């Protein structure tokens, strides 16, 4: 390593991190360091061997590894420094980063940092499914790693709790592997993931779906030998006498993703309780100067393409910060209003064009999406599983009254 200071250090080499590092380099940063805890670049893309990636970013239908490879090659070509099998042990508010790998412990002080740690899966423990603690309970993503990277099957007869995208994709994957997926069980009245996965992974493979159901019991002390499912009422509580035993040797969980922010927390980055990720402004900068964030560690995105775009934005602004450019003042807060779960970014300047992303709380038809009083958009269908995108152009922003401190973003049903 050379002795010049690092301009931009990116933590995590998934789609957000790679895009951030590439963009930081392209924006003129001399030294960009990309740090990855795993054995190779790409984050979870390497294990997502299904297609559907890149439709927006590259206008091509690609697999996860193909999508990732485009970025890996750019990282390699653009003289970005890469450290693999390297864990960030500490991150401080003054941007001191302590790294650990087989060469030792090192503390660096980069000008800018991009947090791109992605997300982790909600576990059986965190949702308190009753029962014993046998072998045979896997999160869907861990099962995906076992099948696609390591080449082992977690089981032969499988029940999947939760209909997140990874769960549905694993339902298809395991069916193709010769395992029997006996049911996908979803507590909500609708499927949790993307419509295309619902069709292509579940319906096309005749996988039984039980909505408004949950797993109320896991059987087996040493290895799973079955689960009991039951219908739930409107409050998501199991309805007595609707229990049904399903024999299986494996339970997969696809019950939600949690942005990974232990490092952000250490550095004093303020997290949004709804997204679980840092509060960011339109530059993807957190409350800690010089610390930026992008991708699933900010909020769990629906498509990887948007993660890459967010990464680029963070990378570019991290480079600008590293070159000493002062941050513009973020004067206006974006508040989540009626039927809006969250809005990213949480603050904007109101001076220049900005793209915002949001998710709704409940599915709804024929709605009006409103930003403050100056922008409205009619939408046929909204679903919590699919992010909504809006661009506030300079023309729109001119409609903001002087002195406005916050804008409410709402998604109301049309009268």
């Amino acid at each position, binding site marked *: 390593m050379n002795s010049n200071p690092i301009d931009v250090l990116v933590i995590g080499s998934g789609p957000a991190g790679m895009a951030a590092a590439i963009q930081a380099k392209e924006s003129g940063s001399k030294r960009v360091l990309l740090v990855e*805890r795993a054995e190779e670049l790409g984050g979870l893309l390497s294990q997502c061997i299904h297609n559907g990636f890149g439709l927006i970013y590259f206008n091509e239908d690609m697999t996860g590894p193909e999508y990732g490879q485009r970025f890996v090659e750019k990282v390699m070509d653009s003289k970005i420094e890469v450290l693999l*099998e390297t*864990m960030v*042990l500490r991150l401080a508010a003054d941007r001191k980063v*302590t790294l*650990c*790998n*087989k*060469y*030792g*412990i090192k*503390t660096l002080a980069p000008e800018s940092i991009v947090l791109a740690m992605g997300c*982790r*899966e909600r*576990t*059986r*423990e*965190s949702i*308190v*499914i*009753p*029962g*014993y*603690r*046998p*072998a*045979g309970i896997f*999160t869907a*993503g*861990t099962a995906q*790693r*076992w*099948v696609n*990277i*390591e*080449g*082992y*099957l*977690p*089981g*032969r007869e499988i029940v999947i709790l939760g209909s997140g995208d990874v769960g549905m994709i694993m339902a298809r994957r395991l069916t193709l*592997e*010769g*395992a029997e997926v006996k049911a996908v069980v979803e507590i909500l009245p609708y499927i949790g993931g993307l419509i295309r996965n619902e069709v292509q992974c579940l319906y096309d493979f005749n996988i039984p779906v039980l909505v408004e159901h949950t797993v*109320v019991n896991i059987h087996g*002390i*040493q*290895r799973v030998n079955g689960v009991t499912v039951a219908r739930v009422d409107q409050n998501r509580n199991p309805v007595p006498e609707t229990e049904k035993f399903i024999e299986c*040797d*494996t339970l997969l969980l696809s019950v939600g993703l949690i942005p990974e922010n*232990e490092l952000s*927390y250490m550095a004093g980055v303020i997290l949004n309780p709804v997204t679980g990720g840092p509060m960011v402004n339109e530059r993807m900068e957190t409350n800690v100067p010089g610390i930026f964030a992008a991708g699933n560690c900010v909020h769990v995105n629906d498509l990887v393409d948007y993660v890459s775009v967010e990464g680029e934005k963070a990378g570019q602004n991290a480079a600008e910060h590293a070159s000493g450019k002062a941050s513009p003042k973020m004067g206006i807060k974006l508040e989540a209003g009626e039927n809006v779960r969250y809005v990213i970014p949480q603050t904007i300047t109101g001076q220049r064009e900005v793209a915002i992303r949001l998710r709704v709380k409940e599915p709804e038809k024929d709605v009006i999406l409103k930003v403050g009083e100056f922008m409205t958009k009619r939408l046929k269908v909204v679903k919590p599983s699919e992010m909504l995108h809006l661009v506030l152009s300079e023309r729109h922003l001119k409609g903001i009254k002087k002195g406005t401190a916050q804008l409410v973003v709402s998604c109301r049903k049309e009268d």
Partner: protein
Amino acid sequence: MTDQPILEAEVVIIGGGVTGTALARELSRYQLETVLLEKGGELCAGQTKGSLGNIYTGLNLVGSMILKSVLLPLGTPLTELYHPHTLHTKWCEEGFKEWESVLNELDIKHRYVPLTIIAKDENQIKNLEKIRDLGRQLGGMYADFEQIDREEILSREPNVNPEVMTALFASKHVIDIFPPEVAIALAENAVENGCKVLLNTEVVGISQSGPHQIVQTSRGSIKTNFILNAACGWGDKICDMAGEGRNWGLQYRKTVMIILDTRCKGLVNGMVRWPNVPGRLDLVQRREDNILIECGTYDPTDRPDDTYTIREDVIKSMEMAKTIVPTISEKDIINTFTGVRVFNTRDVEDHIVEFHPSNKKFLNVIIRLPGIIGALPMARHVAETLKKAGCRLAKKDDFRPFRRAIPRFRDLSDEMRNRMIGDDPQYGHVVCRCETVTEGQIVEAIRRGGSTEEGIRMRTRAGMGRCKGGFCGPRVVKILARELNIPVTEVKKRSLDSQLLLCKSKELLLRDEKGSA
């Protein structure tokens, strides 16, 4: 059974919990062959694993005495709960002092945590005063506490329920430990001194062969002179194998425990509890860098392995925990588990350490809770008992009392870490993000006998954090397969029938093609 014994020993210990491992270490001071048998794939697979842990004395012991009235009629006067002459009380009092040095000898991670018994209403204050008065009456370490007011409570434990009015406070009555580490440390030191430990070895029968006894196990038979039954919850079944059955009346009581994320570690500084009432335990405690909650009743169950977690218990427990620390949140739960406590109804207050009525070389060592505190005096008592029964106990000259823990990378300074990585680069490869556990630690745990996913977890903490092995799980399994030189599909979660991965990918498809499903 006519098969040749695979081993011969002077003493066989059945059960690898804290009782069995404390016995193993004690006997390893003497020149005799000792073999410890554990049916699980790792030590402390039963009651010890699911215990609240802690090594405690004084006020908390008073609390525990009240707790034990779980099986007594309500309204039993508190003073009647103190039985100075029971082995239980004697060993607890002796044991606490002894652990203070043995924890260091065995390099077991431990820390004194302050105990605060809080009260917020008249009824609780009445219960609190009972504990206070009993403590004072007993004197000595029992009386080594102070009563503090609301202001002081909140300065010591700022996050507790602001409605508290008074509390009893003792700074040196509770030592926070991780129970499996205690059993594993005792066993490692015993092995270092010549004891043999066999995992995955279930006792299936006991027979006589001349002057000897034959212990038949799932892995072959072992010829021995003496047998120590430390099988705790399974102790009655083991005892019945050695001779005619007797009515043990073992009772099993289960409680749920909850672990919160390390992010919450500042919620309490030590153990904070409501005053004990018979049959209930309500406490929130700092356990290493997590928060441990045990709030609930001791519910009867008919099996010692009934570690089934009931959702309603978790919900109720959380509600109660919030009355102690209002900011506790379900969002921070990273684990829930159920422990089973074993009582004998013949003498609820006490342990049973006595020879089988018809077999004078078979000693039952059935310990009631708390098992860890009194384990060291218990083991000495058993050695004495064996001696009296004719077992030749000659002290070894070269007994080594010290054990080094697997390096706790997370707790080391960067300077120390760098030194370790310099010596062995595997210590620079962090495998478990949540708990900062390195490959070097995992390899060392395997070298010391860890052979299952759960074993590695208990020995190193890998997979014990918030993601529950989401990232490190596959990596730990692969390291196990590599170091043990076994196929990945042979790696177990804990016992032999807890296979993790059922087959290689494509295997099901190939089987289908051959037409043999």
